């Protein structure tokens, strides 16, 4: 029996990384459609030989007893899905997952969690950027994503892209319905 849990962590206060990235996107990449940029850390925690309920209780225990995954003084978290996002028809929501091509997760965190709880078999970590963009007239979501990828996401030069480094990182545009709760 296996269980895999998703944990989304975020900064409760102002995220300065988002502030600088938004500023750079608007002012230096000249992309006018970005309305809001948010950032989450996505943790995939895989359990062996436990039910989903037991895995969830175990993860809650880790969150209560340690600050390894979440520092409650400055960070908040969601289990499984991000809260529902209400956006009007003039906007699109785009969620990007950025992974380092090579090792990224601090081995101390991995060792602490796996040795302290032998039911955890694997931990993965990635960065999520959530973009709310104004829908340009006459363009559908595929056009918006293509434009975002070329102008904002994939860094190819000083003038193009910032969120992902094409040599050291890779990214996926995630299906929204799988990552936001509906209620």
């Amino acid at each position: 029996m296996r269980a895999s849990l998703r944990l989304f962590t975020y900064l409760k206060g102002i995220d300065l990384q988002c502030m600088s990235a938004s500023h750079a996107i608007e002012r230096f990449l000249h992309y006018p459609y970005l309305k809001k940029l948010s950032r989450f850390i996505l943790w995939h925690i895989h359990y062996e030989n436990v039910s989903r309920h037991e895995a969830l209780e175990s993860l809650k225990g880790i969150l209560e007893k340690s600050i390894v995954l979440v520092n409650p003084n400055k960070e908040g978290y969601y289990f499984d899905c991000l809260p529902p996002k209400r956006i009007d028809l003039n906007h699109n929501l785009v969620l990007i997952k950025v992974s380092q091509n090579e090792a990224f997760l601090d081995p101390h965190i991995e060792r602490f969690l796996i040795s302290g709880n032998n039911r955890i078999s694997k931990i993965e970590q990635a960065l999520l950027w959530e973009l709310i963009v104004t829908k340009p007239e006459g363009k559908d979501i595929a056009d918006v994503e293509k434009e975002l990828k070329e102008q904002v996401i994939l860094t190819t030069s000083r003038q193009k892209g910032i969120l992902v480094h094409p040599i050291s990182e890779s990214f996926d545009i995630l299906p929204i319905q799988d990552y936001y709760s509906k209620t």
Partner: protein
Amino acid sequence: MSKPRCGIIQFPGSNCELETQYAFQFFGWDAMIFRWNTPLDVLSKMDAYVLPGGFSYQDRVRAGAIAAKMEIMELLIDADKWGKPILGICNGCQILAEAGVIPNTKGEYELEAALAPNTRGKEPIGFICDWVWVTFKNTQKSLFTTLFNEGDALPIPINHGEGRFLLKKSILDSIESYSQIQFCTSKAEVLPSFPVNPNGSMLNLAGFSNKKGNVLAIMPHPERACFLKQIPFWIPDPLADEKREHFKKGEDGVTPWKNLFIGMREYALENREQWARNTFHVISRGGSL
């Protein structure tokens, strides 16, 4: 003859500008610190530019990613086109890579190198603060390294969390066209394993030049290794012994890292008249940034 002028660009979060200025002044430069938003007409009169170490913009998004987007980088790209020397140390190296100024194989300033988080084998190891040795390869391909001897091993400090050079595969075929500074043992052996290669860099790269040889991006700090008083006693290197001898006599001295500053100065002195004639063109194009 007046000294060549060097502009040290201070971004919000830069923190090595003072020791960089001291080293440049000691080795015969008129070195001045400028903020990143200094007007173009002032900056364009410089004969060389240095991006010092630090944490520009708090390393937000990636180290150097935000600073690389700033308008001042347009000036540096102009300066590169004129062939002026540009040195990026540590965070400056990361900024030059993010701005596509190195290696700039096609002259189009595209992103071709990354400074990824440090690793040991496949494990991330976080920030490193240590003394290492580096050696030189293809010294005649860059104005910064012409006075160094190929195969010499020199001690130098590193202080970075994201210093692992990764290059586009296409560059690897032409890597011999670039002057390279590589991590090595104290006997100049280039071994790919930790701790000789302290951050997991491709080809043990600690720094390398652009194709023209007028830009050098280097992760270690030469400004912190150019005086004997900066060399720690505990490292097993002849420079530590030399320091002891000098200290007994109550003297200080310089290390071979002086060659980087002097090589750069000689080049600037040879070419600055030509650059001065071109400065008007740069100013008239853009005005103040």
